[in-house]
Every structure is written in structure tokens, then in C-alpha cells.
């Protein structure tokens, strides 16, 4: 269950959060092509390279689950972080709009989030 958002620091994080919601709706509905279309280019390329298969199949293998209700979104410049009850997603802004840079992320104290799907 993916709801729409929230509170944040900057002007309006809602568009980014809406993309996060859209991404997880596609994941929960097993609509892999739609979910892949919402990934940032670097993230999609990294996912395909690591898995050795096309994005839809590679994304399915990551076993992303329903993140639960949406919590808080914060936007700084070209980046937004959206926290769900059981997951965190990072989005980056491109000329074409917001894209998912990392998903399925869990906090690791003192370190970057550990993400099932991420670029680089």
C-alpha cells in the first residue's frame, strides 16, 4: 500500500514522492517494465550489468517488497529521500523528471544506506 505524501524541507517534494509511489505500485503489481522506466539511467545500467540480464528480469530478482505506508520526504536540490514504513527510496531529478536512484534501502548507522537496487 503506497500512499501519497507528506512533509519536507524544500519547496515541494510531492512530485518526487509520487514517482516513488508509482515505482513501488509497479513493483507490487509486478509491472516490471513500468518500474524499470522509472529507474535512473545509471541505476538501471548497474542493475542490468550486475544481474547479466535485462532490467525487468533483473528487478524481479531483487525481490523488492511492499514498503508500507509512506512517511516523510525531504528534498535538497536535485535529490529527494522518501521514507516508507519498511523501506527508503532515493530519487534524483533529471531534465525528464524524477527517477529512482536507489530503492529497497535500509539504514546502516554511520554508513550509507544498504540498498537492493542502486547505481554505481
Amino acid at each position, binding site marked *: 500500500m503506497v500512499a501519497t505524501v507528506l512533509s519536507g*524541507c*524544500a519547496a515541494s517534494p510531492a512530485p518526487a514522492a509520487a514517482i516513488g509511489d508509482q515505482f513501488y505500485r509497479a513493483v507490487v503489481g509486478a509491472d516490471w517494465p513500468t518500474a524499470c522506466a522509472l529507474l*535512473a*539511467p*545509471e*541505476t538501471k545500467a548497474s542493475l542490468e550489468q550486475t544481474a547479466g540480464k535485462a532490467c525487468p528480469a533483473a528487478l524481479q530478482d531483487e525481490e523488492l517488497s511492499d514498503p508500507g505506508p509512506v512517511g516523510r520526504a*525531504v528534498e*535538497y*536540490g*536535485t*535529490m*529527494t*529521500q522518501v521514507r516508507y514504513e519498511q523501506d527508503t527510496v*532515493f530519487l*534524483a*531529478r*533529471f*531534465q525528464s523528471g524524477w*527517477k529512482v*536512484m*536507489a530503492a529497497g*534501502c535500509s*539504514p546502516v548507522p554511520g*554508513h*550509507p*544506506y544498504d*540498498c537492493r537496487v*542502486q*547505481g*554505481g
Partner: protein
Amino acid sequence: MRRLRDHTLSLTFGGLFLAALVGQAFAGWAAFNSDQVAAGLGQLRLVEYLTSANFAVDVAENWQSEYLQFLLYILGTVWLVQRGSPESKELDKAGVESERDQKVGRYAVGDSPRWARSGGARTAVFSWSLSLMMGSIFLASWAVQSVAGWASYNEEQLERLQDPLTWVQYAFGSDFWSRTLQNWQSEFLAVGSMAVLSIYLRQRGSPESKPVGQPHTSTGVEG
């Protein structure tokens, strides 16, 4: 034309400021987008970059340090002296000096500013108005640096898949103080160098230098 010539110092530096700011805008925009491409992130249009925290912090961190430099120099030279330096006043004049020396109140001259003549709070404020203005711009720029730097740093935190900081965490953190102190150290070095080098070196025609033939031991003499 003559009126223009009477203001060449402010006009020239005003023009240089604008040219450098425009140059900084384009160079900073290119550098920002280059970093974004390298990190696989989206690029900004020029107008987006000019309204970004990244550009604001780069401008503000330099402004605050420059205004702090002049504020400290203006205030420091009230009480601190340097034998032989044209940047110092005469050694026995340290301090805020007398009403007569400063031409205030009943010692005001014919065309003294009205607020120097009136006495009381107005004269007190006017007597410190240069430092008050420089100090206000310094504090405002430093505050802008802290907020813009915080936003810019948090953008980087999110790029590194890390949580953003609160403003208080940022203001007491390494990025804010690294940006601040790297500017301050260079300003203090420049001011100290100017005070000392001008004891022994000259620039013919400059009021910031002693006259070329003035002895090294002369203090408070400007060319």
C-alpha cells in the same frame, strides 16, 4: 566625464565584481554539471544553478570572509598599531581618540556630517556606522552560508545514500567550519602581510603605501 573620473575606484571594482560573479556563475555551473554527469545524476539549467544552494554557498562563504577581514581591520587598527606601517596610525594614538581629534559634537567643523555634530545616540551610532555595516553584512553572509551550505551538503548526503543533517548538526560540523576557516586563514594572512610588507616595500603613488622615500621607521604615513 570629470564626475565619472572622480569615482573610478568604486566603478572599476564594481565592474570587476560583476564580471567575476558572472564568470563564477558560468564556471560553477559547468563544474556542477560535470560532477553530476560523473555521478550519473541530472544536470541543471543555468537559471536552476543560479538559484541553487550550491551557487549560494560558494558566493556567501567568500562574502562573509571578505567583510570579516575588513571589519577586523577597521576595528583592529583602532587599538592595534604596527611600527613603520602605513596601515597603522601613529603609535601614541591607539584607541578611539578624543572628541577633538574625531571632530565630533562641539568640535565638528563646518561641513561635518549632521550626525557627527548632533551628539548623543546619533553621534555614537554614526561613530561606529562603518563597523556596524560591515559587521552586519558579515553576519548576514555567514548566516546565508550556513543555510545554503546545509542544503548543499544535504544534497550530497542524499547522493551518497546517507541521511540529511539538521541545521544545528551542520553548523557544528566539519563542512561548515572547513569552508569558513579556509577563507578566514587566507584573509588574515593577507591583512597581516599587508601590515608588515608595507613597512619595507613601496608602491609609488598608492595611498596604501608610504611615499617611496619615506623612512622604514615612519608610522601612519600614507603616500
